């Protein structure tokens, strides 16, 4: 009936006291900004990670000594170390012949603290990997230069290296690395190929590696280390059947009882994403909790300012009641006013979050966007806060005795 009037009264009083209104709304602004920015952040980072991980393993999964779950906790990991035997080349050869669903199987073994030397340059903390020739189809890079490790290399344990673009940048800047020699942990290798660039995930370069035949790796480093076995399925629908088949084959090979826990880890990109989501979910939950606290504080501040407004306008309420305003009319007027107040705070908070995502999107590689669902939710929540914390002041105004209210001087 007269919402328009109540809204224009609310906007008038907002305009009349700009600083006071801003301070009043600060709690709501901060909380809505946090809420929207955190949702934007989590969505952006999830999208970023999903594209990175998605590229890492399109339709791939791997069989490892430990599952991701085993590695989330030190005690759990200690138990897994006792329970899970290492994976051997024999396991690889068994699966290569028995697993019929995957279209490719590769074995690899990795050491993350390799040292490279060549051309008078040195490079530490390089990932040194021994791989089978079939590993190439598991990777998200392609051969940019030269060739990948072949069957001949694997059979003859040749000392050949396939290197990541970061190694080229550090050790062979401006030089064609093909055919040049490089010392990997003191052994001499010949560079046969270079991978295409993959970029960073959280500051860790994916391009800082050296690959050699897995047979060569085991000749140089010993055969104790557990290997990882990678699989590629023929399509996204075949990933789950392939994983089920590998799980079944491994359980049979290790004679696990029906009820026994698996003593190996099967990690698909979905498992990685699940783990990632549980981490970001926890962060988001904490931030949502923080913003809820802000919101309650903001709501109480609004309640306080509305109580002041009711006192300030007692005479006005008296006039309105004298000429026929009912309780519901007065209640509605003040409820609309506090809802407009807090919704304004919500809009300002969304604007602040929008600025944040613009800046963050410009200065980080993460693809930020303002999620519409979060914007609508923030608006609804801020309006609801205004309505909820407006109930008490509005009720107080509605219950005023018209005679007493008329007598109060403004």
């Amino acid at each position, binding site marked *: *009936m*007269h919402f328009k*009037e109540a809204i224009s*009264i609310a906007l*008038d009083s907002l305009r009349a006291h700009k600083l006071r209104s801003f301070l009043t709304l600060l709690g709501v602004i901060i909380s809505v900004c946090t809420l929207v920015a955190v949702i934007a952040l989590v969505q952006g980072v999830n999208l970023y990670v999903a594209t990175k991980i998605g590229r890492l393993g399109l339709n791939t999964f791997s069989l490892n000594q430990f599952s991701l779950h085993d590695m989330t906790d030190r005690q759990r990991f200690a138990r897994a170390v006792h329970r899970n035997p290492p994976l051997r080349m024999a396991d690889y050869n068994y699966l290569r012949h028995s697993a019929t669903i995957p279209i490719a199987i590769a074995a690899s073994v990795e050491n993350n603290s390799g040292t490279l030397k060549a051309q008078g340059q040195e490079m530490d903390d390089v990932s040194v990997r021994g791989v089978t020739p079939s590993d190439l189809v598991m990777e998200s890079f392609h051969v940019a230069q030269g060739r990948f490790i072949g069957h001949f290399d694997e059979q003859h344990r040749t000392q050949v290296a396939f290197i990541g673009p970061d190694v080229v940048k550090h050790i062979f800047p401006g030089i064609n690395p093909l055919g040049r020699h490089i010392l990997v942990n003191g052994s001499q290798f010949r560079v046969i190929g270079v991978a295409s660039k993959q970029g960073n995930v959280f500051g860790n370069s994916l391009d800082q590696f050296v690959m050699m035949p897995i047979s060569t790796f085991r000749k140089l480093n010993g055969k104790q280390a557990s290997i990882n076995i990678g699989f590629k399925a023929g399509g996204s629908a075949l990933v789950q059947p392939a994983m089920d088949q590998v799980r079944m084959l491994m359980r049979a090979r290790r004679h696990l009882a029906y009820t026994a826990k698996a003593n190996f880890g099967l990690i698909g990109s979905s498992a990685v994403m699940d783990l990632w989501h549980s981490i970001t979910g926890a962060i988001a939950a904490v931030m949502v909790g923080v913003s809820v606290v802000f919101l309650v504080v903001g709501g109480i501040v609004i309640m306080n300012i509305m109580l002041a407004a009711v006192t300030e306008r007692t*005479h*006005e309420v*008296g*006039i*309105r*009641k*004298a*000429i*026929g*305003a*009912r*309780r*519901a*009319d007065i209640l509605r007027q003040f409820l609309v006013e506090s809802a407009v107040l807090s919704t304004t705070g919500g809009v300002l908070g969304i604007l602040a979050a929008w600025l944040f995502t613009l800046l963050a999107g410009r200065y980080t590689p993460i693809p930020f966007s303002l999620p519409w669902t979060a914007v609508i939710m923030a608006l609804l929540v801020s309006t609801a806060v205004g309505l909820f914390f407006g109930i008490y002041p509005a009720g107080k105004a509605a219950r005023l005795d*018209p*005679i007493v209210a*008329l007598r109060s001087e*403004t």
Partner: protein
Amino acid sequence: MPSTLTQSAVTRPPDAAAAAIIRTEDLWKIYEMGAEQVAALRGVNLLIARNEYVAIMGPSGSGKSTLMNLIGCLDSPSRGQYWLNGQQVSAMPDDDLAYIRNREIGFVFQTFNLLPRATALHNVELPLIYAGIGTEERAQRALEALRRVDLEPRKNHRPNELSGGQRQRVAIARALVTRPSLILADEPTGNLDSTTSKEIMALFDRLWEEGNTIVLVTHEHDIAEHAHRVIYIRDGQVADDKPTARARQRT
């Protein structure tokens, strides 16, 4: 005794009451002051007919304001009956009284009681808003009311841009706009100089001539002389009720 009174009043309203705008029977108002009870009104009986022009006079503390609050449906009596335009309003709950105030009574106050942030037109529209009347008809009726008090050119001025007399005329327009059965004016000239007071009283006279029922609450005799009947309140009771010189002239 009061119970038989109530019964007879409800079942057999006197014939004179049919045409009455205001009829009260044994109206009491008792305030609780801590443990003490103070009776502001002690059994007031009034009968005011349609198109009467009545002044209520009395010294401060006489119960005059209490009576005005009861007549204006701003308050409910502790005891007794009150019919306004044929409706029993003495036992109505809050929101029903608000409805009655909106439909039946046009208030004019000493301090004007206009909304300071609203224009003259909006102030006049306000009772129609609470009556649930649509935007177009509302503006039309408010303009018409402003025209009746010769203030149409000032419709977009706020109260602080208007003189005291103009503010009171806006308040009178606001009282008229719902076409109430009673115009209740509480010291309408109390805040005005004598020239402006004369203008405002001339306006009330004109409203009476147009058929309105007017009740003036005042303590000034020359203001009360505009009415045709003066009711004196003393110690919470009707002390005197007589026609004014003006009424005697008319007859």
